[in-house]
């Protein structure tokens, strides 16, 4: 069995980032001119993609990183980074991280349960197709329209708020507020849960029916199967997907801006305000230092993700 093949169509692919082209795609050991030419010919097919990603993704990121260490005349300085890691900006990072943790773990758990319910439904049934296509659409839903949906539902005079108040439980009397951190988490779940369903389904598909049958033949009950077989196999994938959701929550901008418009200091909104020109002249590059900070947080999350997916790759193919 080839254990390096990924689960079908997996968003959360085992060791995706970790497997930097090594032996097979790197230049051959014998550095002959012919060998290099042959290698160049082999990778020629991925060159357009490589160039596009370099220009559209890599270079802008490098530009942000470089700008973080420049003053307005282009000289080298640490003052942007220093400003970005103090005061209101440091507070913004903490708020962003707390929000992203909540808005990745909770939808991660719910998303897993929903994905499992979909997975156990028969293939090709309406329920399955409706749920999966809806996930594809809702995962891309956000911004002002999403904020509006929840103002109309859980705002102070929203539909669900009134229903709950009629039942004698007004959430606003119990410390809930749509414009607080908890409220934003509830709203983020609207696109995070569908994203989780999309990324975790391939891992669930990788669970072999044969394993369950083998466990049952050995006398395992459902609980035993999940405790000793299914759970351990799924855990790295699950944690990897949660990290992905963490990144997605951290980078959300439109929804947060529409909903809180400054009531919660979040790093992505602070960066946006630098672009909108709502800052004192001469401080534009602090925005880039904030951007660099976000990229570093994301990079740490992705490194853990890679390590976890390597473990997942052992079983899920």
């Amino acid at each position, binding site marked *: 069995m080839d254990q390096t093949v*990924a689960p079908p*169509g997996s*968003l959360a*692919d085992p*060791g995706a*980032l*970790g497997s*930097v*082209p*090594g032996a097979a795609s790197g230049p051959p050991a014998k550095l002959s001119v012919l060998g290099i030419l042959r290698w160049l010919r082999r990778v020629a097919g*991925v060159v357009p993609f490589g160039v*596009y990603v370099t220009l*559209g*993704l890599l270079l*802008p*990121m*490098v530009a*942000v990183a470089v700008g973080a260490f420049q003053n307005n005349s282009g000289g080298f300085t640490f003052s942007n980074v220093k400003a970005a890691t103090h005061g209101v900006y440091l507070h913004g990072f903490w708020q962003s991280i707390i929000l992203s943790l909540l808005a990745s773990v909770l939808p991660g758990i719910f998303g897993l349960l929903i994905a499992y*319910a979909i997975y*156990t*439904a028969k*293939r*090709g049934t309406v329920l399955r*197709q*409706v749920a*999966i296509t809806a*996930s*594809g*659409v809702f995962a*891309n839903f*956000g911004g*002002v*329209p999403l904020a*509006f949906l929840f103002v*109309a*539902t859980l705002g102070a005079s929203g*539909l*669900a708020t009134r229903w709950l108040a009629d039942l004698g439980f007004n959430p606003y009397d119990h410390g809930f507020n749509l414009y607080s951190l908890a409220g934003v988490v509830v709203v983020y*779940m609207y696109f995070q*849960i569908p*994203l989780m369903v*999309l990324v975790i*389904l*391939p891992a669930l598909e990788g669970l*072999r*029916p044969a394993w*369950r049958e083998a466990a049952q*033949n050995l006398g395992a009950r459902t609980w035993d199967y999940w405790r000793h077989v299914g759970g351990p196999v799924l855990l790295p994938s699950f944690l990897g997907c949660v990290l*992905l959701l963490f990144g*997605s929550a*951290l980078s959300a*901008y*439109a929804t947060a801006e*529409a909903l809180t418009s400054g009531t919660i200091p979040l790093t992505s909104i602070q960066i*946006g305000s630098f*672009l909108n020109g709502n800052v004192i002249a001469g401080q534009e590059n602090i925005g*880039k230092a904030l*951007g660099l900070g976000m990229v570093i947080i*994301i990079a740490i*999350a992705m490194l853990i993700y890679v390590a976890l997916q390597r473990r997942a790759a052992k079983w899920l193919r």
Partner: protein
Amino acid sequence: MATLSQRSAERGALPIWRWVILLVAGVYFLIPLWAALRFAGVRAFGSVISETGFTSSLGLSVRLAIITTLVTIALMLPTAVYVHLRLPVLRRLLEGITILPIVIPPVVLIVGVLQIAPGFIKSTPYLLALEYVILAMPFAYRAIDAGLRALDLKTIVEASNSLGAGWAATLWRIILPNLTTALLSAVVLTVALVLGEFTMASLDLYQTFPVWIVVNDQTSGQVSVAASLLALFVTWLFLLAITVIGTRQSRRTGGGSVTLFTVARQETRGDR
């Protein structure tokens, strides 16, 4: 065999806890839609088209969506096919790179893009389309990849080559027709992304459809809500139609059922 049929029965009729989960999910996802629908009212849907700025902003978004889709397919399809056939070792790296746009904040990306983009592109809205290609990669690549996995790519390409077809002919006349469903999913997901992307467009100061919805929201909120609900339902219906039709066609030719990112490997499943 007993366990197999027992499993099938189990999978057919959902046990109670699965109904509970799906019910809770249904409540969470449908009530906000219902609340918004009630707020907007039926009449708002009729007046969406006549609203000022609607046509021009939707027109811009549609143009961006067309360019994004064309570039995405032209870039991702040959790359994915090539990697599947010639450089399978690069497949994981490719999946790793294409996942990045989900986690890299668009707000950071646009800062860098505006800094390095040459002036002649920066002065047009089409810079957005070029960046949307990057943002669409996670979804587009996975849809295409799932389609390619479901094919016996190697065999059909060898058959095509041995019959004298060149690479271009194989791609155009053999692979493309076999990937219709996967490509359609990729297209709809890409269009959904472009029609909903707000962050980059607003910070690049162009009034695309989602930006218009926000601007217009201040003057006539109900119409804005109606417009965004319309966009959501239309995209979803398209996706649903594609997977249902795709599955039907795939069944006819003996393939597995088609979903967005996963294609069943028939031999490993016990439920059919």
